[in-house]
C-alpha cells in the first residue's frame, strides 16, 4: 500500500513550531548521538523524513516523540543546523492536536490570540462568578481568623473541581483512546498479546514517577531534577485540590511543622523555583533546549507561577488576619487556575503528563511484541 505524500504538511506544521527542517540531508548524526533512541524506535531522523514528505498517517501513529526528553544533543551535533530536537518537540505538540478529536488543541497551539482569548474569557467568568455569588465583606471570626470556608465553602469548590475534572478527564481519556488506536491498533505490523499490557504497565508507572529516562540525557541532571520537582509538586497539588480540598482548605491555622503546611511549602517551592528557572532560561535562550519557544511554553509556566504566587498571598493574608485581601487573592487564584486547567490539561502542554508515560508504555508493548514475533519466526520447525 502506498502512502500519498503531502507537500503542504510542513507548512501546516509551522503553527506548532518552526525550524529549518528542510536543511536535513539525512546523515543520521542525530539518531546516532541520541542517548534514548534504540532499535525499532530510531529517532529523530526518521521523523524528519516523514515530516518532509508529509506522511501524515505514518506520523500520527508515531510514538517516538514521546520517548524524547529534549536534551538538545541532536541539534547541537547537526551539521546542517536542521534542529531535529525542535522537530520532536513540534511533533509532540502536533500529536497532541491529532489525538484531540475536538480540534480545540490545534486551535490553541496554532493561534496565540485564540489561546489568550479563551483564557481571558475564563478568567473574567470566574471573577464575575465570585463578584456575583461570593460575599467579600465577611469579617474575621471571634478568634481573629479569616473564615475562608465561609467565603468559598470547600465542599462547593470541591464539587466544582470534580465537575471540571470529570469533564476534562473525559476529553483526556478519549484522546488517550484515540492515541491508542493510532499507535497500536492501526499499526498492522505488530500484534500485542493481552498479557503484555499487564507486564509492561509497571514500567510505565515507574517512569511516570521518576522520569528516569530524562536522567539518561547527558549532562541534563539539573533539568531532570527541576522538571521532576515541578511535576511532583504539581501532582501533589492536583491530588489535594481534587480529593482532599476540605483537609487542605481549612480555617484553622496549623503550626508550621504540621504536614498540611509542610506539603504546601514543598508544592509552592517546587512550582515557583522550577517555573522561574524555566521561564528565565527561555528568555535568555542560550541553551539549546531553551532556545526555541512556542507560546504554550511560556503561558504554561507563567500561569503555574501565578497560581503559586496567589497561593502564597492567600496564605500570608490569612495568617495576617486580612479577610478582604485573602478573598481577592483567592478569587484571582481560582481565576488563574481555571483557564490553566481547562486549556492545558486535555488540549495542550499539560497533557504530556498523560501522553508521555502512555507513549513509553506503547513503545515497550510494541518492542516486546516484536521481539516475540521475531523469536517465533526464528523458532525451528518441529
Amino acid at each position, binding site marked *: 500500500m*502506498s502512502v*500519498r505524500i503531502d507537500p503542504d504538511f510542513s507548512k501546516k506544521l509551522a503553527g506548532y513550531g518552526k525550524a529549518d527542517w528542510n536543511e536535513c540531508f539525512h546523515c543520521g548524526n542525530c539518531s546516532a548521538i541520541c542517548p534514548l533512541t534504540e532499535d525499532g524506535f530510531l529517532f529523530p531522523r526518521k521523523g524528519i523524513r516523514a515530516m518532509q514528505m508529509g506522511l501524515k498517517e505514518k506520523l500520527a501513529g508515531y510514538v517516538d516523540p514521546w520517548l524524547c526528553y529534549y536534551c538538545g544533543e541532536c541539534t547541537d551535533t547537526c551539521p546542517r543546523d536542521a534542529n531535529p530536537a525542535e522537530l520532536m518537540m513540534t511533533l509532540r505538540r502536533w500529536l497532541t492536536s491529532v489525538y484531540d478529536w475536538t480540534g480545540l488543541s490545534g486551535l490553541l497551539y496554532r493561534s496565540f490570540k485564540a489561546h489568550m482569548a479563551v483564557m481571558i474569557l475564563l478568567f473574567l467568568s470566574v471573577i464575575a462568578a465570585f463578584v456575583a455569588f461570593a460575599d467579600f465583606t465577611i469579617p474575621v471570626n471571634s478568634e481573629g481568623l479569616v473564615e475562608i470556608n465561609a467565603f468559598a465553602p470547600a465542599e462547593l469548590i470541591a464539587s466544582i473541581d470534580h465537575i471540571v475534572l470529570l469533564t476534562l478527564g473525559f476529553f483526556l481519556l478519549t484522546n488517550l483512546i484515540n492515541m491508542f488506536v493510532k499507535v497500536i491498533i492501526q499499526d498492522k505490523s505488530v500484534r500485542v498479546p493481552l498479557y503484555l499490557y499487564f507486564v509492561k504497565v509497571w514500567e510505565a508507572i515507574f517512569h511516570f514517577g521518576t522520569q528516569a529516562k530524562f536522567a539518561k540525557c547527558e549532562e541534563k541532571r539539573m533539568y531532570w531534577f527541576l522538571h521532576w520537582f515541578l511535576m511532583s509538586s504539581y501532582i501533589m497539588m492536583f491530588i489535594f485540590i481534587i480529593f482532599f480540598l476540605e483537609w487542605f482548605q481549612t480555617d484553622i491555622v496549623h503550626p508550621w511543622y504540621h504536614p498540611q503546611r509542610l506539603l504546601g511549602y514543598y508544592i509552592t517551592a517546587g512550582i515557583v523555583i522550577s517555573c522561574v528557572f524555566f521561564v528565565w532560561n527561555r528568555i535568555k535562550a542560550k541553551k539549546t533546549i531553551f532556545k526555541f519557544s512556542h507560546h504554550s511554553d511560556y503561558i504554561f509556566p507563567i500561569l503555574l507561577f501565578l497560581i503559586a504566587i496567589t497561593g502564597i498571598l492567600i496564605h500570608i493574608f490569612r495568617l495576617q488576619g486580612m479577610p478582604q485581601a485573602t478573598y481577592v487573592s483567592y478569587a484571582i487564584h481560582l481565576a488563574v487556575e481555571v483557564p490553566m486547567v481547562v486549556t492545558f490539561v486535555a488540549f495542550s502542554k499539560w497533557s504530556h503528563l498523560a501522553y508521555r508515560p502512555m507513549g513509553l508504555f506503547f513503545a515497550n508493548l510494541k518492542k516486546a511484541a516484536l521481539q516475540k514475533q521475531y523469536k517465533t519466526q526464528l523458532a525451528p520447525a518441529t
Partner: protein
Amino acid sequence: MEEKRIGVYVCWCGTNIAKMVDVERVAEEVGKLPNVVISKNYKYMCSDPGQELIVKDIKEHNLNRVVVSACSPRIHELTFRKALQNAGLNPYMFEMANIREQVSWVHEDREEATKKAKALVTGAIARVAYHEALDKRTVEINPASLVIGAGISGLTAALEIADAGKQVFLLEKEAQLGGHTANVELTFPYMIPARQILDPKIKRVENHPNVEVLKKAEIDEIFGYIGNFNADIKVNGDSRKLEFGNIIVATGLKPFDPSSVDLHGYGKLPNVVTSIEFEKMLQSGKIETKDGREPKNIAIIHCVGSRNNDYHEYCSRTCCMLGLKFANQTRTALPDSNIYEIYADMRSFGKGCEELYTETSKRDIMFLNFDQREGIPQITKAHPGDCCEMLIEMKERLSNTNIEVPADMVILLVGMEAREDAKEVAHHVGVSKCGNDFFIERHPKLDPVATTTDGVYIIGSCQGPKDITDSVAQSRAAAARILACITQGTVEVELTTAVVNEDLCCGCQTCVNVCPYTAISFDEEKSVSVVNEILCKGCGTCGSACPTGAIRSRHFTDQQILSQIKGIMSTEMTEV
C-alpha cells in the same frame, strides 16, 4: 658482430612486485645467463635514481642492451627507452618484462610467481639479444584541419584553430549549426542563456576567413595519416575533396529514447515529457500540459536510461544539474506549484553546481530518493476525480516507504547515448569505441583528447556524456594540440613497421587484403606489395598472413619472437 652486453634490472615496485616475487633471487639467477653482464634489483626502477642507475651502468659496463623487468610496457616503456637514449644507446635496444600485471598482481603462490617472473625475464633477455637499432622518421604536416560536427565543441575548436591563422573545414550534418546546445534555454549552474553563448560563435564561424563551413555534409571516405589526410565528402549532395593534416571528431550525442522504459509510460501518457521537450517548453515561455492547463504538480525524474543495468550503466553527468535547473525555472514560473525532484543520487559536482543544489533545496522543492536496484518509479493514470492526472509510485529510500506522488506533468531527465552513426565515423577516422559506443581516448587520465590514431582527436560528448563547460575545455585542449603539431611542421612517426622483401614477394596481395590500416598497396609494375610506413601501425597481421615470409615486422621479427619463446621455455616450469 659486436659482443652482446646485456644489463638486467628487476624492479620491486615498492611492495607491488616484491611481496609476491622474490626479486633478489630472480636478479641473481638471471645474472648467470649468457650475455648478461650485470643484473640488479631496485625498489623503483622508474624513479629518477632508478633511471640514472641504468645510464650509469651503460657507461661503466659498456652495455649495449637493456632489460627492465617491472610493470606493463604501456606504462613505462617510453621512460626507459628515453633513459637508453640519454646514455647514447638506440632506444630500441631495450625490452621490458611485465612481472607486475602479469605476475605479482595475478598470482598467489610466491614460489610459482617467482619462477614465472624468472621465465619472463629470461625470455626478454633472449629477445633483446636480437634487437636491431631503428631510426626515427618524420613527416610534413598539412596546416589545415577538419572538424566533424558543429555543436558547441566543434564550433569552439574550429574558432580556436582559425583564430591562430590556420585553415579549418567545419563539417555539419544538419542544415543549422549549434547542435544540442541550440535546444537549451538556460545553462546550469549560472543560468546563462544558451543563445548568448552559442549565437556569437555561430556568427563568427560563418564569417571567419579561415573557416569553411560545410552544412548538410557527409563523409564518404577519409584516407591518409597524420599531417596528410584527404577526404571524399558530399556537401548538399555534391561531391568534394578536402586535404588536411589533423581531424577533430565532435559528433556529439543522442538523447536516450524513454519509450523503452515501460514503467515511465512515455508515449502513452500525454504529459510525460523528456527533458528536451521540456526545454522547448521553456524556450516557448509557457509551461503547460497538452490540453493547455497550468500543471499543479510537477515531478522531475532523474536517471532515465542512466545508471541502470537494463539501459546504460554509466552516469550521463548532466541530468542532475538539468533537473535542479528545471526545478528553479518552474518555481519561478509557477510559484504555487508542487515540485518533486525524484532522484537516485544527486550528483552536483563541478564549479557552482553544489551551490545551485543548495539554492534549489531552499525553494520549497520536495526531494524524493529512489534506489535503482529496487526498481524505478512507476507512472500511472490517476483515478478520475483525484486531485491530479497521474500518480508516481515509488519506494522512497530515506524513509523506506512506498509512496505515491501526485503529478500533472512528469519530466524525464533522459541520459546521453552514443550516436547511431558512431560506427561509421569510427571507421572513417580510425578510432575505437568503448562498450557503450563512445569513442576511446588515448589515455583516460593523461591524454583525454587524443586517440590511438595519430592526428585524430575526440572532443565533447562523442567521447562520453559531458556538459558545455567540459566540452569547451576539451575543444580548446584539442585545438592546442593540433596547433602545436602544425607549428612543429613535422611529426615523428612509429618505426616498428612492416617491410617487404621484394625478392621473396610473390605478389599474391594477401597482405593488401588483411591490412586493417590500408597501409599496403600493390606495385603493379614490379608486381610486389609496398608498405606505406606512415600508415603502418606495426600490428603484424600481414607478416603472419604472408605465405612466403616476404613481410617482416620491424621490432617483431620471427627471430626475436621465437628466441623470446625459447628463452621462456628454457626455464624450469611447473606443469599445470
